[in-house]
């Protein structure tokens, strides 16, 4: 590995942090398409991957790059792509295929202000719901959301590991501000982090059933070309991998796929909180907004307001249990976000009316400031 342990503290850009973490986690394939503000990830990996014997390809479009990622993963390489809003929309078709056929992969979406071409170089948080429901049909997906360059490193490693362990597409949602910000990162050595691989078959090829899963719901995956000849299809399929439309088998598959996430929810839910022990008003925020919220909460505390911060680093599955617990003991939750109100809907759902939930939207392409959040905290 290129990460030398004698120079571990590094000044990295968010996108650079993501690329380096992916390499450390074992990603050896990247297919992408140029798009602001994520292009640095592709640029860095085009240089770094071949140094490690990996492969980089710039495909003809976003759809093709997602397809190539799934193909490479199927043939045994840990695979990733990176994009932004408009490209993320195009990736949804094959992201759904990966989710349904259970091919591990990581999709980085460095969000910008949407919709459409929007503000290509400005931050926005409008893709929270697209990350969850962007592709059609019920499907499992995991989305992680860092609030700093250092967290980007940590969560990128986790994204690769979760994708492999659960055989699910994992989306890393990033904010443009973090992608282009430079901060200190303590880069761990390879032996200091956990590196996961997809579960492998323990039976000989003639006994292999590609979609037969144990109690945890994750079937063993054989890479193409290793002697296990199997069939993948985007049609409903049974444990053998071949198409079926038998209602009982269809029901079984979709429930197992979604159950894979709920079964492992505890292991894949990462959160951060500050001053929550005696808080009467909580701020729930993610990404760059959590940074402003942290400062706002500290300023509020100086003014004697019992404010606290709860930051979901795992956005999907949504940390319902933690939010419900908070709602039961605070008077009010404030949800600042750089969209017209996506996170606030989830918070309201999880709070179940146990406290007041107030949204705060900023949609002008500028980040939410600590002062804005402080003003809302002072409103009580």
């Amino acid at each position: 590995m290129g990460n030398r342990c004698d120079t571990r503290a590094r000044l990295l850009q968010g996108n650079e942090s993501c690329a380096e973490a992916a390499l450390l986690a074992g990603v050896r394939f990247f297919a992408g398409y140029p798009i602001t503000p994520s292009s640095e990830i592709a640029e860095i990996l085009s240089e770094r991957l071949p140094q490690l014997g990996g492969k980089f390809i710039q495909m003809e479009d976003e759809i093709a790059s997602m397809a190539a990622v799934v193909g490479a993963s199927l043939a045994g390489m840990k695979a990733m792509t990176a994009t932004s809003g408009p490209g993320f929309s195009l990736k949804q078709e094959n992201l759904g295929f990966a989710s349904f056929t259970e091919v591990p992969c990581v999709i980085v979406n460095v969000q910008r202000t949407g919709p459409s071409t929007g503000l290509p170089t400005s931050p926005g948080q409008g893709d929270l719901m697209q990350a969850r429901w962007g592709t059609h049909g019920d499907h499992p997906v995991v989305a992680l959301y860092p609030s700093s360059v250092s967290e980007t490193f940590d969560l990128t490693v986790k994204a690769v590991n979760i994708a492999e362990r659960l055989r699910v597409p994992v989306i890393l949602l990033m904010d443009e501000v973090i992608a282009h910000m430079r901060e200190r990162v303590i880069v761990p050595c390879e032996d200091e982090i956990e590196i996961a691989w997809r579960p492998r078959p323990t039976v000989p090829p003639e006994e292999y059933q590609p979609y037969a899963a144990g109690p945890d719901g994750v079937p063993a995956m054989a890479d193409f070309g290793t002697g296990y000849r199997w069939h993948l299809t985007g049609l409903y399929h049974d444990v053998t991998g071949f198409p079926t439309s038998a209602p009982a088998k269809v029901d079984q598959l979709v429930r197992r796929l979604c159950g894979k996430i709920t079964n492992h929810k505890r292991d894949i839910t990462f959160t951060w909180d500050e001053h929550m022990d005696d808080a009467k008003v909580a701020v729930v925020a993610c990404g760059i907004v959590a940074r402003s919220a942290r400062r706002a909460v500290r300023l509020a505390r100086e003014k004697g307001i019992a404010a606290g911060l709860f930051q979901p680093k795992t956005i999907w599955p949504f940390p319902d249990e933690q939010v419900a617990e908070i709602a039961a003991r605070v008077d009010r939750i404030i949800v600042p976000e750089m969209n017209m109100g996506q996170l606030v809907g989830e918070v309201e759902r999880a709070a179940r009316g146990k406290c007041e939930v107030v949204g705060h939207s900023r949609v002008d392409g500028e980040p939410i400031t600590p002062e804005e959040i402080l003003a809302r905290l002072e409103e009580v």
Partner: protein
Amino acid sequence: MARSIDEYLRTQFMPHIWCPGCGHGIILNALLRAIARLDLPKDQVCVVSGIGCASRAPGYLDFNTLHTTHGRAIAFATGIKLANPDLHVIVVTGDGDGAAIGGNHLIHAARRNMGVTTIMFNNSIYGMTSGQYSPLTPSGRLATTAPYGNVERNFDMCELVKASGANYVARATVAHARQLSTYIERAITIPGFAFVEAVGNCPTYFGRRNKLGGPVEMVETLKKNSITAAAAAKLDPAEVQGKIIIGEFYRGDAPGYIELYDGVIERAKEAAGK
């Protein structure tokens, strides 16, 4: 003596879903005979498809098989080939899947000279969705979405793929099964991108609506309407109009992408070592 093609079939799924008289079986047979002659180990063959009648073929084949999304087979195949260059990656696609929705992927795989063999099953129609016109439906023909006759011009896929930079381009019809199989065999062995257009017949949705007769009559028409590339070259363009030109259109030896990228890896490792 060549191997029997039976060992390549997942016979437990027979009968297949194709209509009686469909030419797809002949194309699949030609592909399997080519693989048998080449004696490729089953574990080293990967067949990838998109969506449509032709794209249902991989399900019947005892290889590493992947039935993907509409038009995207070549892009998936690109990822597979890059991750494991030892695999013989073969894409089966139809005229809708490969020439319409997947057209751009085809052009760019040919331009990159990616080590993928593509067989296009051209039956001139969208069969799976019951008979809409495709980019390969000849002008004037009827389809469910061209009730007054198709006003669009049909693509010459071999010209397109050749111009895009593939190392091998050929066309045959289901009336020329042995020739078709020979072309497929060459397409699999040649490094870089290789393309074979297999012109077939769809009696159910193309033949019936256009009153082209039953399956046998349609195959006979294909035979009668075909002309070799060599013979076509000696005729006036007007005389070739409406004919199916069959033969090998291009055999090149430009370096393939996989080979070129191996050079990138070498240079990158050298640069990193400095």
